């Protein structure tokens, strides 16, 4: 599985971006750059990541920096998958 591609796919699904995620660069800001990403959407993104990759995310593993940019979110998922 290509982690970056999968993460972008999850964002696209949950936020109904209709393919816009394909043009996202790693330094693109998520929390301040994507109006679709409110707290409920964050919860849904975490849920979708858990179900797609089969890992569990604890509250205290995530903070504002996790969703700072596309790159930080992909890196977070890479670390979870490697753990």
């Amino acid at each position, binding site marked *: *599985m290509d982690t970056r591609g*999968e993460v972008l*796919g999850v964002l*696209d*699904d*949950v936020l*109904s971006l*209709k*393919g816009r995620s394909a043009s996202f660069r790693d330094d693109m800001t998520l929390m301040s750059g994507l109006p679709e990403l*409110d*707290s*409920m959407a*964050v*919860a*849904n993104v*975490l*849920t979708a990541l*858990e*179900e*797609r*990759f*089969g890992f*569990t995310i604890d*509250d*205290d593993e995530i*903070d504002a920096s996790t969703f700072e940019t596309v790159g930080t979110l992909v890196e977070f998922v890479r670390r979870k998958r490697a753990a």
Partner: protein
Amino acid sequence: MTIVQEAFYLPVDDGRCFAVYRAPHADARATMLHLPAFGDEMNKARAMTACAARAFAHAGVAVLQVDWEGCGDSSGEHRDATLARWVANARAALTWLRARHPDVSPPWLWALRAGALIAAPLIAQRSDVPLLLWQPVVNGKQYLMQLLRLKAAGAWASARGDASSTKALRARLASGEVLEIGGYDVSPALADELEAATFALPVEHTGPVIWLEVSSSAHASMSAAATAAAHVAAVKTKTIAGPGFWQSVEIERCDELVAQSSSLVAETLDAVRRAGAVL
């Protein structure tokens, strides 16, 4: 093929469950019990599952849909609901289907989302049950945390790590409090059962399994759980392009999922009949 539709109350232990039965006018090729999603996901999916049940009936399958106790128009309150009761409701529904179609057996189980957690104890008893799985929840503990996270999410922006974290919500359940999550009361007993529930295909499962997942991107890969299941048993897996109708804000339908399910079920029944003819 014309179909018949009946709505009725299915008597269960100390109550009654609202049920809808849809079947072909002619003899049914197979029977099927729907195991609905939980809570708001069931609500969001109602239009979709009704549409699918009609399609399956047109394809020759007699389909029974039941609201478990504490859900929809059935007796009881959601706060009194337990997985054990819902499994007992499902058993009563299966008994009804078998009585109605004594020569067609065993009934298919068609599970959506957390409905798979109800399927688990049923397939543990019978390895030849045919399964149709729609985006199944395989890990009850994770699912419970996801429910709690949705409740907690509202408070995240303002105060992080306060009394509304998922851990704090879980502790409130553990202390005996009933929590309202998305409009549905979840009791400590139901939370404990969910936490312990899993769905996995037993290695000895012999019945056909169709495992479908929905993604808005047509080229998405299957979940880790589906990939793992396909290693254990003969599982047909497929990703369908469409909206996540069980969680969307507006009521949505995924017609492609209905079409693919109908044709895969029909294909499976054809293959079973051919195998029977050879024997």
